[in-house]
């Protein structure tokens, strides 16, 4: 069953067409990768799906529901949560506070609630959930550290943790492995698999690190100039000549020839 269905989605910036009438279907429970050269429109695509960027055309359906143009806080409440390409955590807060902020949706604090009711403080259920995610992302040791002091790799995990706190049905990760070394990205791959297997969330992943993408994804879509260049299983993609030409790179010798032309 398809969980996310994007049809004919387009985004223009002035004269530039960043995403060009793109169709994309993501199956429920899949780990789906999106790759493509810099500027192919991957981040733009994410931004449109999550509602941070208006679409110039096309339609986005989530679990059968039209979500085109919904603002981000609405798409999040439907269960579509994204992370950012840059590392994004609430710098001024501690790690556990970051996770608690992620549970915002489960509470939606109101004025009266904050004064007299349940939003005065975090419930034990919230705390438990936060602690659970804390362990899940392996940051239990950093519980009360200020987020800004975490090493980059941990900040990224925290970013994913914040997203997980909102109990997503579809988790959209933008280059989560960027800046990670092999060990870290191996751990990340495990974490992402766990998210799918244990939390039951669908994962949509943008990543330049081929090892991560090829190792993790069941299906990969390749974008180029805002259009779909290829789609298929990792092995098919790795062998696709169009993909090699546009993204993975020309044959070494061919490039050498080009360099000396």
């Amino acid at each position, binding site marked *: 069953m398809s969980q996310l269905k994007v049809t004919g989605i387009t985004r223009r910036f002035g004269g530039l067409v960043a995403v060009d009438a793109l169709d994309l279907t993501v199956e429920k429970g899949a780990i789906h990768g999106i790759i493509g050269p810099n500027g192919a429109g991957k981040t733009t695509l994410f931004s449109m799906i999550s509602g941070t960027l208006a679409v110039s055309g096309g339609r986005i359906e989530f679990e059968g529901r039209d979500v085109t143009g919904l603002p981000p806080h609405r798409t999040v409440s439907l269960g579509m949560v994204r992370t950012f390409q840059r590392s994004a955590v609430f710098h001024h807060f501690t790690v556990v506070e970051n996770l608690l902020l992620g549970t915002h949706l489960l509470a939606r604090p109101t004025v009266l609630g904050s004064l007299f009711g349940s939003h005065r403080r975090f419930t034990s259920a919230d705390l438990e959930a936060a602690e659970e995610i804390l362990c899940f992302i392996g940051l239990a040791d950093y519980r009360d550290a200020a987020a800004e002091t975490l090493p980059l790799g941990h900040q990224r995990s925290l970013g994913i943790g914040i997203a997980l706190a909102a109990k997503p049905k579809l988790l959209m990760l933008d280059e989560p492995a960027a800046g990670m070394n092999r060990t870290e990205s191996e751990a990340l791959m495990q974490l992402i698999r766990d998210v799918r297997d244990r939390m039951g969330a669908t994962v949509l992943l943008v990543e330049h690190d081929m090892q991560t993408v090829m190792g993790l994804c069941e299906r990969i879509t390749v974008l180029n100039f805002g259009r779909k260049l290829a789609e298929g299983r990792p092995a098919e993609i790795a062998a696709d000549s169009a993909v090699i*030409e*546009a993204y993975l790179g020309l044959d070494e010798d061919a490039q050498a020839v080009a360099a000396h032309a």
Partner: protein
Amino acid sequence: MLEVRDLIVDYDKTEVVRGISFEIKKGEIVSLIGANGAGKTTTLRTLTGLKRARSGSVLLEGQAIQGLPAHRIAGLGLAHVPEGRGIFPFMTVPENLEMGGYLNRDKASFRRNLETVFERFPVLRRRQHQLAGSMSGGEQQMLAIGRALMGNPKLLVLDEPSLGLSPVMCQEIVRVLTELRAAGRTIILVEQNARMALRLADRAYVLDRGRIVLQGRGRDLLDNPNVRTAYLGLATAVSAPASPA
């Protein structure tokens, strides 16, 4: 020509460059490669004075330049083509080039340089009356490199010239860099596109989380299995499609 010793750079106490040393000899192309966030840009920014180092030294022809403001370092002959090109979007192509020759008050040599740049990048001559911001990415990259050449730099510092460029454009950049090397320019090249960088470089350094983990001749690194696994992704991906869970 340029020597970097034990450079440490941080942002708000997070060290991102953790004590690196390297050198560039006259007439060489030296590449720095490394993953996203490895500290390549930060290193370059420190060389050209956009960022202050916590400690360490940078010597240009024996003269210490660390801690000088960027405009002074530019005056010493370092030309930096920054990440994202940094062209002046609301100025025309000649105006942008004029800024590249800002420190060169000699009209005649300015004209000569302008002519050379136009000859090297004929596309810029064709775009003369256009605002730089409205040109395509590749053209903008040409402009940025051309602008850097306007000041007759001793050392050209290029940060990801292929960023956001289509393969065709990348090849164009490769052509230009090859030509520049042939003309005897000294260049530091930072690239995400490790394959391209290693191919062009006489020597290369591999940066991982702020440290230099490997160095050597470009060709040698290209064949290094560790490099192939870590930075050329493709090799392992093709050979081992589905890595075990």
